[in-house]
């Protein structure tokens, strides 16, 4: 199945994988914020929101597998793991961008008070830990301003890199499993 000359575009597969993980990431991040708000700030570091994470641990990493599988099966072709890494990386990056845009729409238009409510919850949670004043002040300085766009872009930026790398890895695995010729 060597078809280097007429290789179809991988963008459809990338977008399918990206939309799937974008939706998962959005549901996870917005859902976990509502779960946080519905819980009492007890000072615990492990919150209700993380229970959700326990169930879906590493789900955001499957984009690379989904895209490379789709690309290989839909077009019935083989490709090197470098292509799988690229497809996976693009899937992760676009998935995070989709999630970022939806989260932005949600927190700026649909529920504009959400970020501020979570910020206040985090402060109450810190207070519940009965930290010394100096440490409390230091912790407060680490909490991003809920209205700050730079905090949002910073969080999205770091997620882009790490989820991109993880999905590049799963893209390589996907390419090896679904798109390589049997050795």
């Amino acid at each position, binding site marked *: 199945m060597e078809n280097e000359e007429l290789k179809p575009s991988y963008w459809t597969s990338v977008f399918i994988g990206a939309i799937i993980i974008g939706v998962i*990431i959005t549901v*996870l*991040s917005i859902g976990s914020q509502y779960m946080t708000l519905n819980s009492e700030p007890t000072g615990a*570091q*492990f919150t209700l929101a*993380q*229970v959700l*994470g*326990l169930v879906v*641990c*590493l789900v*955001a*990493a499957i984009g690379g597998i989904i895209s490379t599988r789709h690309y290989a099966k839909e077009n019935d072709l083989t490709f*090197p*793991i*470098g292509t799988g*890494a690229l497809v996976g990386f693009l899937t992760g990056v676009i998935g995070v961008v989709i999630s970022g845009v939806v989260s932005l729409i949600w927190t700026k238009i649909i529920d504009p008070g959400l970020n501020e409510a979570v910020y206040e919850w985090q402060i109450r949670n810190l207070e519940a830990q009965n930290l010394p004043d100096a440490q409390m002040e*230091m*912790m407060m300085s*680490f*909490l991003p301003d809920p209205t700050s766009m730079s905090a949002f872009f*910073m*969080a999205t930026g*770091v*997620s882009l*890199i*790490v*989820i991109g*790398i*993880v999905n*590049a*890895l799963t893209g*390589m*695995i996907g390419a*090896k*499993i679904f798109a*390589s010729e*049997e*050795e």
Partner: protein
Amino acid sequence: MVIEFKNRPLYILLFIGSLLLFIIALGPGLFGDISISYISWQFKVFHLLCHQDSARSFFINGSQMATCARCIGIYGALFIGVISMPFWGLIKTLKFRYYFRFLIGTIILNLIDVFGNLFEIWTNTNVSRLLLGSMFGLSVALLLTSEFFKKLNKED
């Protein structure tokens, strides 16, 4: 013995990527930052990939790692697997399907461990989580080894 080194740029990227993941996953304690780790940037990076339960995580310098014990096992073993790929390339003689079965086997083992603990059939520990996570990370590196390193026959 002669070994062929293929896909060099991709291997370098894989090396840098796995190293980055491992260092970030070790959390703020690695840099001597003793602040509460869940507000550190390392913690935020893995927020969508790991539950980050403090009871299921290791600590460095009194600061919780950015991922749980199982995930640090995955990223740590993946990195070790990537740097030891030339060695695996030299000794490996198995076909791809056996490495694939090993990968699937480690996933199943991890799922059995998670659900066995969830349904209180047994209680797993951070060390058992680390070991099972490490097996998965290593199986990923083993699966990919032949793409970068291959033992050459004398005729080659």
